[in-house]
């Protein structure tokens, strides 16, 4: 499990760092009449102030990205030491990385905007909107068909169908979660593809033919990228599902293949976006009649705020390939609040869930009528009168125990599990101390041990006496 988690986080971190490099690479180049997201007249590009600001900003950002990529890679081995420590450091790193990139981008952007205002480089065509009628008319035409997503979605759904009859299997819930995640990603890719096809019609030039070419190319590459993301994601789930069906049990090999194939999902999205960026630059560099709308005023804070724009999402001029919310739009503000609360909630929940697992110790206690065993934040309380069977076992039975809500590492297994024979059971096992005490009621089965020598045997006798049960 540690190895799987190490691979997941290493790949995720590298993918995230790759996305940042890709998104930020063009911010420090002069493109579409802009530098650092600010419209600057071409003739002033070589001014000392502009060059100094551009190079200084770029250097700062490169260092920041480099050190954070290293931190992202070096943090992963912590998983082998302590999950709680890893998640805490990981959460801090993610927040620092994302907030840091955003902070630096906005800082550099504002400095450039201040320079522009100081020098009076305001273009005449502020607050003008350009519409290319030929582009608008062809809005419904999609060079990359949305229908290609359907076979992927169907394949994922069809491969999950056989498992609906296997709800009793211990791995069902895990597979359901993976299926839900895969389907969500594929559906999300499809919906975003639809959004791009319907909404994105930027006008770059007075040459309507060029606008159409750029738009057509954009829709093709972005559509291709989203479809490849969905396809590779679908293939990875189908692989896992088929491997599990074939083996009759949750396939670990299938799971590792699933993780490996997800790398292709990421590549499938990023590579076409890279080619789109290059192709767009190639097309627009040769444009003799570029059309620039100086709407820097709406971006002056670093965030987009334009009450006259009905769009909720707009291409982010500070991060190529990314999108930004229009904070003048109520839905955008609501989405931001929801996402912020959700993300903070996830982080806090994970840390709270992992905190008890930072030090796992099995504890037992008696009250007048009940017996309680707990470890790692999990607890089972049974009435002494409900105990039907008490057995000392030399070792844990081999029953393909599957973790449904708990934690299992090389040094402990605590929480809710499901076995093929024993069904729903609770495990409180720490270290390799034997024997193990099995306690059964009509509702549940509990397996636990105690660290001190002889302690479990003593507890067994005490439970036998108080419950009147025993082998």
């Amino acid at each position, binding site marked *: 499990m540690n190895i799987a988690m190490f691979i997941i986080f290493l790949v995720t971190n590298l993918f995230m760092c790759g996305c940042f490099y890709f998104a930020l690479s063009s911010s420090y180049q002069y493109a579409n009449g802009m530098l650092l997201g600010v419209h600057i007249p071409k003739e002033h590009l070589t001014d000392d102030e502009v060059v100094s600001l551009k190079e200084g900003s770029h250097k700062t950002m490169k260092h920041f990205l480099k050190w954070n990529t290293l931190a992202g890679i070096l943090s992963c081995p912590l998983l082998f030491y302590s999950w709680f420590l890893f998640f805490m450091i990981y959460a801090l790193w993610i927040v620092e990385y994302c907030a840091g990139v955003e902070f630096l981008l906005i800082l550099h952007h504002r400095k450039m905007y201040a320079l522009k205002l100081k020098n009076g480089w305001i273009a005449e065509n*502020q*607050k*003008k*909107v*350009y*519409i*290319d*009628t*030929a*582009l*608008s*008319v062809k*809005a419904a035409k999609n060079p990359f068909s949305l229908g290609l997503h359907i076979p992927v979605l169907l394949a994922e759904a069809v491969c999950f169908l056989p498992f609906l009859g296997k709800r009793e299997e211990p791995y069902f819930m895990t597979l359901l979660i993976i299926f839900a995640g895969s389907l969500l990603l594929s559906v999300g890719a499809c919906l975003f593809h639809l959004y791009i096809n319907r*909404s994105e*019609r930027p*006008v770059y030039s*007075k040459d*309507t033919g060029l606008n159409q070419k750029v738009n057509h190319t954009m829709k093709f590459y972005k559509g291709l990228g989203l479809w490849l993301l969905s396809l590779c994601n679908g293939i990875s789930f189908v692989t896992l599902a088929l491997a599990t069906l074939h083996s009759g049990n949750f396939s670990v090999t299938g799971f590792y293949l699933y993780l490996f194939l997800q790398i292709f999902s990421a590549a499938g999205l990023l590579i076409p976006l890279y080619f789109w960026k290059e192709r767009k630059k190639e097309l627009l560099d040769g444009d003799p009649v570029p*059309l620039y709308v100086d709407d820097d005023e709406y971006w002056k804070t670093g965030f987009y705020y334009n009450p*006259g*724009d*009905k*769009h909720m999402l707009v291409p982010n001029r500070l991060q190529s390939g990314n999108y930004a919310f229009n904070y003048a739009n109520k839905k955008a503000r609501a989405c931001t609040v929801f996402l912020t609360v959700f993300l903070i909630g996830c982080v806090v929940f994970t840390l709270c869930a992992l905190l008890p697992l930072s030090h796992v110790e099995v504890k037992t206690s008696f009250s007048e009528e009940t017996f309680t065993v707990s470890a790692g934040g999990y607890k089972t309380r049974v009435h002494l009168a409900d105990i039907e069977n008490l057995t000392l076992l030399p070792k844990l039975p081999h029953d393909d125990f599957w973790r449904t809500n708990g934690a299992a590492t090389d040094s402990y297994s605590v929480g809710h599990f499901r076995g093929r024979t024993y069904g729903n059971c609770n495990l409180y096992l720490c270290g390799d101390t034997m024997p193990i005490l099995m306690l059964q009621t009509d509702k549940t089965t509990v397996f636990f041990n105690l660290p001190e020598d002889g302690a479990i045997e003593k507890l067994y006798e005490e439970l036998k006496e108080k419950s009147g049960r025993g082998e």
Partner: protein
Amino acid sequence: MIIELDMNSDIPIYVQLRNQIVKGIGKGELKKNEKLPTVRQLAMDAGVNTMTVNKTYQILKAEGFIRTDRRLGAFVADNLSPDTRFQEKLESELELLSAEASITGMDKEAFLAMCEKMYARMSPCSV
């Protein structure tokens, strides 16, 4: 064609849209029977309400510059012939322009040269 809207202008958006489309037809940038964006598409791209675009299209249709089909959308009209109403409208607008030109001291030859220059830019597809 490229439609340019000035959101800072005192001229209402629907008038700007109407004028831009008429100029486009006049210059030949919009050909006869050429499809125009739907009300929804144009409204989305312009960032305006659909009612604004609807009003524009109603005016253009009334003036005979475009025709609309419920299923297929809006198209540049294929036969535009100046009727009496158009003549009267043109006369009225020219009267105003002439008055402004003469008040500001522009002489007749300069005014007519300007009109000729503007007219020369127009090359509508044969209507």
